[in-house]
């Protein structure tokens, strides 16, 4: 049966595939699961919009100036981390550290803004999670988003600690890229949250 090796068919050469690295696939699929998670919370918020039996309603309780300021902080942090990545790829370590610290700082300002906003809501408007449906859905949605911002800040602080005074390897750069993906995602979620909570439900008159 066996033929001489020279007569055997020769397989075609293998073309290398150009796709994402495993870690990139991992982060992308994790973010997909996060999309499903936030979609659920947002759908719940929308389902209960205007169904409250007692006040305060979004229109009564939410005020825009502070949240617009914190939104600007968060969205601009996405731009800052993008430049941080670029300087990392150019090998400008000091500039990278500075910009990454700046991103984290903008995130912290966002969280502080949320803290001030929640304090006003709780103390002045008596809006707690148990007050009405708006309270339940609002604190759950905004709270989980805030939790994700916190996780992102912690990740950036870890990167900062790891990066100070060390040579930055290829592996490290890949890790920073994934943190940046996560951070862009958190910002994108905030855009939707902002539109739903502060624009749609505030102006729905309920």
């Amino acid at each position, binding site marked *: 049966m066996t033929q001489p090796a020279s007569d055997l068919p020769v397989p075609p050469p*293998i073309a290398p595939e150009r796709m*994402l*690295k*495993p870690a990139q696939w991992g982060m992308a699929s994790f973010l997909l699961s996060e999309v*499903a998670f936030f979609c*659920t919370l947002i759908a719940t918020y929308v389902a209960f919009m205007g169904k409250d*039996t007692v006040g305060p309603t979004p229109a009564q309780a939410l005020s825009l100036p502070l949240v617009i300021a914190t939104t600007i902080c968060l969205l601009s942090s996405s731009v800052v981390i993008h430049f941080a990545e670029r300087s990392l790829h150019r090998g400008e370590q000091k500039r990278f550290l500075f910009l990454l610290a700046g991103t984290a700082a903008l995130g912290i300002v966002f969280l502080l803004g949320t803290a001030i906003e929640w304090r006003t809501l709780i103390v002045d408007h008596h809006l707690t*999670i148990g007050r009405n449906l708006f309270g339940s859905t609002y604190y*759950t949605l905004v709270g989980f988003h805030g939790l994700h911002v916190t996780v992102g800040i912690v990740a950036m602080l870890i990167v900062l600690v790891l990066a100070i005074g060390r040579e930055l390897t290829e592996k490290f750069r890949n890790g920073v890229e994934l943190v940046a993906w996560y951070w862009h995602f958190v910002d994108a979620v905030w855009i939707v949250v902002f539109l739903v909570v502060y624009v749609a439900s505030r102006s729905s008159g309920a």
Partner: protein
Amino acid sequence: MSSLVEQPRGIELADRPADVAMNMGWTAQAHEWATTVDHKKIGIMYVVMSIVFLVIGGIEAILMRWQLFYPRSKVLDQDTFNQLFTMHGTTMVFFVGMPILIGIGNYFVPLMIGARDMAFPRLNAFGFWVTLFGGVMVYMSYITGGAPAVGWFAYAPLTSNTFSRGAATDFWALGLIVSGIGTIAGGVNFIATILGMRAPGMTLRKVPFFVWTMLWTSFQILLAIPPLTAALTMIIFDRQLGAHFFDVPNGGSAYLWQHLFWFFGHPEVYILILPVFGMVSEIIPVFSRKVLFGYEFMAAATMGIAFISLSVWAHHMFCVGMGRMPDLFFAVATFLVSIPTGIKFFNWLATMYGGRIWFASPMLFSFGFLSMFLIGGLTGIMLGAAPFDFQLSDSYFVVGHFHWVLIGGTLFGTFAGIHYWYPKVTGRMLSERLARWQFWLLYIGFILTFGPMHISGVLGMPRRIYTYDAGHGWEIWNQLSTLGALIQVPSYAILVYNLITSLWKGKPAGDDPWDAWTLEWMTTSPPPSYNFEEVPTVHSRRPLWDLKHPEDPDWQYE
């Protein structure tokens, strides 16, 4: 003392890492297993965990069948009965079905794609332990004074503080959140591994079919589990923080819970069946000595199911009164799923057609899968017709239907996979004689348990009742069901006995006992911790066939 462990005779011990491990002290071994990040060991732990939970869930089922044997029986009171069916459902879905499939996937996906491990080994270990702790946490509810009594889909307002006073429901929700995080970790890991770590030459059009189904199962995990996590969080916020999500008197919605739960719940049943489709699609070609018929159609059908199944969830809610348009939409979407599933069925049959069929135990269980899953699918189409569902929703007909799918489909297929791959995992063959006893006891016992439920359902018996009055004509069907359950018991005992004793009594398997074609059969049985000495190069869907038949390789025809 390790010297007291009887060593298997007559085979090369040095080649078998498992035997090397047996020579370690038991504390060293326990440490090795607890800290391992090897995808194969983690896979084994997933499967062992699932079998332990399978036995627990089975005991719960037997207790319920015992109570239902006679009308007005007093074996169990109603609270105990409610707790048992809650725990039975939760256990079987979350701590048997998903982990056993994820475990088998964990073991074989890297081997089948020629990788040395999963993409994230430590995340993999984390996923397993978190899944296990989630299961333990749900069972911890017993020490708070009783398990949750809310049913596995926990309809509001049963989960509110008013109706569930103890801490059991909190333990249940927390346990499912925790194990859900483990499942998501598994899904992320599978996707990264399958998309990023295939052997050179193994394009996505050449992956083994089991790998392809694990990819789409993982996709469904990513989209289905997080909504459940969010909904369970809402339950906990309602119960612990006084939120009002499902609190109807304050404007909350019990209806919303049903939507959120079934948005998870229906993709979930496809999470439980897609990997089994994959296993059967590996086994049927090997035991028919033919290539899988219509690989491309099978692959597209898998994708089709993964997407369509995301839009059928509310067929569980026809009796809620959603209105005519939603009823129509979800009925039509449900019927649509039967098209890709039908494609799969005919392709399996076409694979067998004209083949030299070898009815070894994996093929026997695949046959059980094909015959039974078909019936479960057909009763599913019946229930998908909304007017039919209006009549039989929440009756024993539904119980009969989904057990037919989950046992006839998932369990038979998983057993086929276990019998197919056990030689690779242990280096030993399972006893064929015991496998045949196990199969026929399960086949007969299963039909006898769940067949009569369709009839008692049509006769009007509601599900989840702890007892019933005489004179409805339900007695005989319940008694047949209980009898069938008793016939199933020795089948599971035989499986466990066979799995354990074959570890040293089984015939040595060699690397490739079934003369199969995928990469896992290229390495030793059991595989070394690094899987492959040399990363294989792939040219076709059957790389091992190409190696065995260099004069007539598959890549000439694909």
